[in-house]
């Protein structure tokens, strides 16, 4: 089980728990504002863009080239940007905080 905190653009903090799926799927299920997940997680829409808390960013597997190229064109990109459909939920990310980018 991993605890995950989403912070929306409006500053709302949403704490959720899950053990499988992706950060995008969990957010969509709980209607986290700003994460639409339009393409269902195949890296085609960028409607799942988040900024990962710096201390967790390094712990994640590095983004693929396809993900990085996609992010390159999105708004509000920072060095901690990720498409959260590409972040699987596991014990390894327990306690992670992500800020919704758009």
């Amino acid at each position, binding site marked *: 089980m991993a605890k995950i905190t989403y912070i929306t653009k409006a500053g709302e903090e949403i704490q959720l728990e899950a053990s499988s799926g992706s950060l995008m799927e969990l957010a969509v299920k709980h209607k986290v504002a700003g994460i*639409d997940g*339009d*393409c*269902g*997680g*195949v*890296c*085609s*829409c960028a409607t799942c863009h988040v900024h990962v808390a710096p201390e967790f960013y390094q712990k994640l597997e590095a983004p*693929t080239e*396809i993900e990085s*190229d*996609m992010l390159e*064109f999105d708004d509000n990109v920072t060095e901690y940007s990720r498409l959260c459909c590409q972040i699987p939920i596991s014990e390894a990310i327990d306690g992670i905080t992500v800020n919704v980018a758009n």
Partner: protein
Amino acid sequence: MSASNFSDAFKDTREAKGTCPFNDQNDPVTMLLRFKDVRKTAHNTKGFSSAAKPGRIVVPSEVNIRDTRQIPFEVDPPEHTEYRALVEDWFKRPLDPDYENKLTQIVEAEIERVLQKGSIEAISELSLPIQSKALTLLLNIPLTEAQTWISWGTHVFRSEDSDLDADKASILYDYIDAEIDKAIAAPDDSLYSVLLNSEYQGRKMTKEEVKGVLILTFAGGRDTVINYLTNTIAYLAEHPEAIEKLNDNPALVNTAIEEFVRYFSPLTHMGRVVKEEKEISGHVAKEDTRVSLCWASANRDESVFENPNEIVLDRKMNPHVAFGFGAHKCLGATHARQLMKVFLRVFTEKVSTIDIIDAAENIEDWGAHKRKVGFNELTIKLNAK
């Protein structure tokens, strides 16, 4: 010859040159064929404008058949951003469970209806009715209105011998004018009324602006959705094992719809007018000339997609541009995706196999390239489970 094979029409030119000229009504277009160029150019709304004369960014150009600007489609940021924000929530309604249920009922009824028949012509008897009836949900108007649109036939803008037919197009424009007048006289909770009540830059939207949104809604989602549905049926006819796989595994439906839309790319390309001269894969795009973003070619680019000419139902990484890319990405995509999902779910639940009886391909002519985009006719027989 397999009906569900859609070859990559642009491969050789994409790899050798990356761009290709097409002469369209004396306003030539240079088609951009590479994935990277297409995305970069789509993203660059400053250098490549959508706000040209109405109809000019469409290929073939519609400047001779319409004056109304489609909104937000033919507008650049920052105005585009405000228009888009006005309509965004409305076009996300397809995610509501109630919308999804109604869509499911429509698709179930249509498939039940054709299962009772022997052979059917899939475009006119299944794809067009489903597309039209689904559109009543997006506009939030009575289902019965779909009969009018079905009676228009498959091509609203095209006639037998011409790609663009002003008389045919005016049927749609006149219809929308009349519907807007009705909504002004008797406001309801349809898209017409919602738009008439919306405020742009602190004032009410004009009739012309409302018309612009509606033309886009009708035109953008007609041939595209019809081709998508028909092509998917052709694929399932020739891949009966996929019917079972999709029926047994609901999660597969999510990746499958993205893969179908990549592979079929129902909209071949979309134009832009050059604002700042730029070189793209060796082509010097001069100011006030046109380029087009060839989604269909980008979606087969081998440098991005493994086995691009295969349909891989569970393709995990699929950064396709079938719904466009950037600020102007398809406004109707949420509706289209919901319809695609519901259609696959219901279809694979009720149908066991499909026999193709007759097929006539619809081949687009882009000068040096001929691209199959769908069918002019697809006669099939559906066998129930």
